[in-house]
């Protein structure tokens, strides 16, 4: 974009919004909106504290385990659905239902079954992430050229070999985009899970800050989570672009 002959960098709008926020914050219009400078100062202050690091550790742990489960379970299910008409008939309605359902409503059910702990948060992450991984893997496997499958069979591939040497790799572009979208959903899962459980990790901190009206702390926490989700997305998108030639060279 150019204004009056000057090239305006893309992040310029962010600067304008930041300035507006700062003005609104300093004017004391609402206690919910503290000055932006205060929030950033608070980020620097609370990030190194043991409470925050402990919350970060538990979040990272539940996020990683939940994603690992979603990937390790989701990919084989997706491959099975892509290869077998029967598996597809049985599972597709459920997958379609869960992918559009308001999953937050199910978290209390998980809580009742598995208690107020890490297990519930991990399962919430799985619940949020797995469906898009299943659907994208299924789509990827369905787009594998039939001759590649016949090739593997004719050279004597076992089912396991066909899975590990052909299906996974041939469907890799779709699987990776499923994992990326799954991880973005998993960020929602890990936050919502913690908020609802609210006695561990960031959930406890959110609860603590909001009940004591510590708005700078509250926003600081949100910013950290937003930055994490954004960075994760960019990193995965970069990885996806690196394997893009696959899709282009598949005919």
């Amino acid at each position, binding site marked *: 974009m150019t204004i009056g002959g000057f090239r305006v960098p893309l992040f310029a709008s962010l600067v304008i919004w930041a300035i507006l926020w700062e003005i609104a914050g300093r004017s004391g219009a609402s206690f919910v909106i503290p000055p932006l400078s205060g929030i950033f100062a608070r980020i620097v202050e609370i990030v190194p504290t043991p409470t925050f690091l402990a919350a970060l550790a538990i979040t990272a742990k539940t996020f990683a385990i939940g994603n690992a489960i979603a990937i390790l379970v989701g990919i084989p299910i997706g491959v099975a659905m892509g290869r077998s008409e029967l598996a597809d008939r049985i599972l597709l309605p459920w997958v379609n239902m869960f992918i559009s359902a308001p999953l937050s409503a199910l978290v209390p059910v998980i809580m009742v079954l598995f208690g107020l702990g890490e297990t519930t948060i991990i399962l919430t992450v799985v619940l949020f992430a797995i469906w898009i991984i299943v659907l994208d893997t299924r789509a990827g496997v369905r787009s594998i*050229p039939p*001759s*590649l499958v*016949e*090739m*593997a*069979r*004719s*050279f*004597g*591939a076992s089912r396991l*070999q066909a899975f590990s*040497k*052909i299906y996974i*790799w*041939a469907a*890799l572009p779709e699987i990776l985009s499923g994992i990326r979208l799954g991880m973005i959903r998993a960020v929602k899962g890990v936050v919502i899970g913690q908020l609802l459980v609210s006695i561990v990790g960031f959930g406890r901190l959110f609860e603590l800050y909001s009940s004591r009206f510590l708005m700078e702390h509250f926003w600081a926490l949100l910013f950290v989570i937003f930055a994490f989700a954004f960075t994760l997305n960019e990193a995965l998108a970069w990885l996806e672009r690196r394997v893009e*030639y*696959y899709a*282009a*060279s*598949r*005919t």
Partner: protein
Amino acid sequence: MTARASHHADAAAAAVEVRGVSKIYDGGVEALNDIGLDFPEGQLTTLLGPSGCGKTTLLKIIAGLIAPTSGSVKVAGRKVTGPGPERAFVFQDFALMPWANVMRNVGFGLELRGVAKAERERVAQKYIAEVGLKGFEEAYPHALSGGMRQRVGLARALAVNAKVLLMDEPFSAVDEQTRRKFQEDLLRLVAQERKTFIFVTHSIEEAVYVSDRIVLLSKRPSRVSEIIVPAIDRGGDPEQIRRSQAYLDTVEAIWQGLKRYIE
């Protein structure tokens, strides 16, 4: 001129025997109707017929990729129930793995059999050189031309050292000049490898040029309409063969035979 043989009177032992094979696809399309054929060992037999006649279906039944509705196929005396190591397939669209380089693609059949990496790369190396791709071991399929990709597909089929090579219109997706070169290479390969080749094509000229025997299939549901043994001396140079009277007469005879299937 052209010798015509009934398929019961073959001197060479049959490497592949097809007995009473019929195929009716789900939905009622009848592709093959009671096919009985012997494929003599060490020869190149071509399945030729009008498009959609079920040539490829027959080839895939021999490969064990499709089950016949009735009838049976024997390879080296043993009944076919699925793919087996004594048969290798060359695909019309090459069927290469785009994520693997030439070396891994060529060695893939051996990889599936659990052959150690050093050994399968040694074998792959040999056949890569054999098909004229020396120096392209590390190249990926997307960087190769159509003709080069099919050479990779051919090397992969040769590397597993199968007795029977099944080729499904292998040269139809490459350009004309490359195809002619391929046909010449194929003749050399048949002479030197002593394998049984079963070749599917829709090109009469190609069939006459490369085949020891040509099986003419009728329109769907296909039956064996005629078996032709082109009496062509392949000793001379390729251009001589394509201009020889025997070659031209055989092409013409087959065309007369096939013409009635084309509206």
